[in-house]
């Protein structure tokens, strides 16, 4: 059995000394003020201060730290930038936190073979920045891309607005360097298509740190599209907007992104950023097409026609890069704008088949009415990945209880419509209970067996994803902040 609770003072001091011997004095945090920074990630409703935080600089240091933890039987939790939204790096059941923030090297850029090897602590946006001059990009672009790290992206299998055409993180990770919970360093996958053996890279992606610590990843680079068109379509009703989404897909067009905001969110965004959104509209769609330049005008025309046929009030294309950037800024910062509408808000992350969007939105509305809550919607419509935002005042305990109930009911509705309880935020600690809506006992047992092949003692990020006796965490207050 591994040690999962705070250590006794003597043990803590001994561990601290041993860690300092590995990473140096400046690589170990032990003061309460320093540790408090690490008490939660983007999911703030649960907090737990780690006993010690260690910040290795190299894979070898990570391996030695993990070895040390293994010999002492101490559980650990990996952490990147702490932008996760499901409490994946909450140290509730692991005294030792291993942060990757000092592992920020891009080890190799291989432009002819369209790949990079980035260490776990490299910030997502830095990868694309490093290769942009060569006309390449690392496609996955979660909204937190200026802060979140590659290691965290791999752990969560992060999404973002451009997954409709390009896929999520796992589709762009060729291989990983993984430190197993016994300290062994393994190389999984390869930079070539003919990887031999089981696709362990594929199952490590999205394993939320429960297989060990990813210390580096080989990432696929993709050529920048020759041309991009970004359009804003305004609709009188949410139904007209969702119909448009379905018709675009039915026409055989796969946009790079297809994002929707409803009236509540549009009003908040407009009040905050004055981007010229019509505040009386029922919904707006942000539609981005990319690809070879020659065919794009034709595709654009067809999308505009589809919007008009669905009674769009207006459709306009961004005239230049600045306008395009302004549209995306409004979309990506929608959550910040919501802060103006209510003292607190809570974001859900669920998925339905995209044809069921009208139905899930109607159900969300009914759930809101029943619980006397105001709910706004801003989401990846093309993927059917919804992000309902419930507005409330967390000082009102009774209202808060209704928010929690509504959130759970929304996820139940996603499952009832054939969807999932999380599209991109992960299970973490937040949705342990909801995982049971998607999977039965046998399904979860097989997943646990695979986990045991990597981490038989369950010392890597214990208490996450799976319901266990030790991890019976009840939500008390919904989270205040969220982003996508």
């Amino acid at each position, binding site marked *: 059995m591994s040690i999962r609770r705070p250590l006794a003072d003597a043990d803590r001091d001994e561990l601290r000394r041993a860690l300092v011997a590995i990473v140096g004095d400046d690589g170990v945090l032990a003061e309460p003020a320093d540790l408090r920074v690490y008490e939660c990630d983007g999911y703030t409703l649960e907090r737990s201060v780690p006993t010690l935080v260690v910040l290795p600089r190299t894979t070898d240091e990570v391996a030695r730290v993990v070895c040390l933890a293994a010999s002492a039987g101490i559980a650990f939790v990996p952490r990147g930038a702490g932008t996760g939204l499901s409490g994946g790096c909450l140290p509730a059941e692991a005294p030792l936190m291993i942060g990757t923030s000092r592992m920020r090297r891009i080890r190799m850029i291989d432009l002819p073979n369209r790949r990079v090897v980035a260490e776990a602590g490299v910030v997502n946006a830095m990868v694309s920045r490093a290769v942009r001059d060569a006309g390449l990009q690392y496609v996955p672009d979660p909204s937190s891309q200026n802060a979140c790290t590659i290691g965290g992206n791999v752990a*969560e299998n992060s999404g973002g607005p451009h997954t409709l055409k390009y896929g999520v993180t796992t589709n762009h990770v060729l291989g990983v360097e993984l430190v197993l919970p016994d300290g062994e360093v393994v190389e999984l996958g390869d930079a070539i298509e003919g990887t*031999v053996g*089981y696709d362990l890279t*594929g199952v490590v992606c999205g394993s939320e740190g429960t297989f060990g610590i990813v210390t580096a990843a080989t990432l696929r680079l993709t050529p920048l599209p020759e041309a991009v068109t970004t359009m804003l379509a305004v609709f009188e009703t949410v139904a007209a907007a969702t119909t448009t989404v379905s018709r675009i897909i039915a026409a055989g067009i796969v946009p790079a992104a297809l994002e929707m905001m409803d009236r509540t969110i549009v009003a908040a965004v407009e009040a905050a950023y004055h981007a010229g959104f019509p505040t009386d509209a029922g919904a707006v769609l942000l539609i981005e097409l990319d690809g070879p330049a020659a065919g794009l005008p034709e595709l654009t025309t067809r999308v505009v026609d589809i919007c008009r046929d669905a009674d769009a009030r207006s459709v306009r294309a961004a005239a230049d890069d600045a306008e395009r950037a302004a549209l995306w800024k409004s979309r990506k910062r929608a959550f910040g704008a919501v802060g103006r509408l209510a003292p607190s808000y809570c974001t859900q992350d669920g998925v339905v088949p995209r044809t069921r969007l009208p139905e899930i939105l109607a159900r969300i509305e009914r759930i809101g009415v029943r619980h006397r809550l105001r709910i706004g919607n801003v989401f990846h419509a093309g993927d059917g*990945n919804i992000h309902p935002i419930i507005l409330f005042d967390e000082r009102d305990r009774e209202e808060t209880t209704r928010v929690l109930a509504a959130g759970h009911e929304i996820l139940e509705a996603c499952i009832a419509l*054939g969807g999932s309880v999380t*599209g991109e935020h992960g299970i973490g600690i937040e949705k342990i209970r909801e995982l049971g809506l998607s999977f039965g006992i*046998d399904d979860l047992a097989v997943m646990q067996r695979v986990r045991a092949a990597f981490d038989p003692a369950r010392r890597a990020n214990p208490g996450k994803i799976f319901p266990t006796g030790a991890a019976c965490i009840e939500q008390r207050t919904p989270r205040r902040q969220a982003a996508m």
Partner: protein
Amino acid sequence: MSIVDTPRSDGRVSIPEETTRDVAARRALTIAGVVPHALVTPSTRAALATCVRDAAAAGTAVVPLGLGAHRALGHRPARYDLALSTRALTRIVDYAPADMTVTVESGVTLAALQGVLAREGQWLPVDPPLPEQTTVGGLIAADLAGPLAASQGRVRDLVIGTAMTTADGKEVRAGGRVVKNVAGYDLMKLMIGSLGTLAVVTEATFKVRPRPQTTRLLVLTCADRTAALALASRLAELDEVALAITLLDDGDTSPTWQCLLGGVAADVDVVTTRIRAAARAASATVAYDEDGAAPPAAARLAVARDVSRTAADVVVRAATLRTRVVDLAVAMRASVDDGARVRARVDPRAATVTLALETADAGAAIARLRAVAAGHGATLVVERWPDALAATIDVWSPLPPALPLMRRVKAALDPAGVLAPGRFVGRI
């Protein structure tokens, strides 16, 4: 050749009811000279689960198969008591064209699935040989993307959910039916390419795509091999409109590049012009330019004319980095002795070289090819080899450094080692 033709009578082998011991049926599923003792074709998933559970409980070795079209891939099974075919599981479970997802049972053939999708103007963008004899389960188990993979992604990029029966006879699920989903581990990835060694896939959900509005096939004939390979890097740089780019070099006729294009007509025109310019610069002739009329399926035969389906003794596929693929192709070719008949296929974007050989000394040829591949940092899969080599051959090389971890994954899912024992990498 060692033909095991009679059922063992040691009492250890448990053969379920819905089985056939018909010799012809069993021989049709011979793997590396070994004939299964029985063939079972469950008509329901519940029956399949029972069959696996009972077999595993009795220690009976079960090799899962579809129609067996790709069973040459992989080592000879250590034991081959029961061939378990999913071919009777042929239900289209759910197809929602507007969601661009389809859920099917694993015995549905790729050709049947493409037929269903085509009626809605969609396709699953994979193109392995023998689609009429390739089941969805086989597509997954043998990871058969074909020449479209470089532009459309591999099987791993298309599967979003599976149901599978584990060795304890329980059908479990991973993933789902929506295109974006991070609930639970991505066990689908473990199934892909695993040759049935971890579980029996019974159902799969795929992301599908709209068929290209226009397709076009260009065939470039090159003066010789050197001239052909000189075009590789130019063609590799083509954009997403270039669905498949393949060099075929069969030794008898001039090497040809086969370029399948698809997309909006204006984009296809642009890429056609680029290819024609590249061909001119390399003194290649445009032997064939079929515009628009043919949908991808019709163009497939020309593009994917599959060297591994020729009458070869040995078929190997090597994969390397893009920048090394031309050197690798040249070196592999040079390693083959003069007497051997050779057909080659090169994909400059997937960076793969496939060679099919008719040779008197297969063992020596494979050894030389393996050394060449290793020298170029390539992996090598021996996709076909004479049965006489079954005991000694290493189908995959080099073995992955994570092989011990892979053994632990196998032991976690199939602790008794009853699913396709010995078939996989490192004879897992």
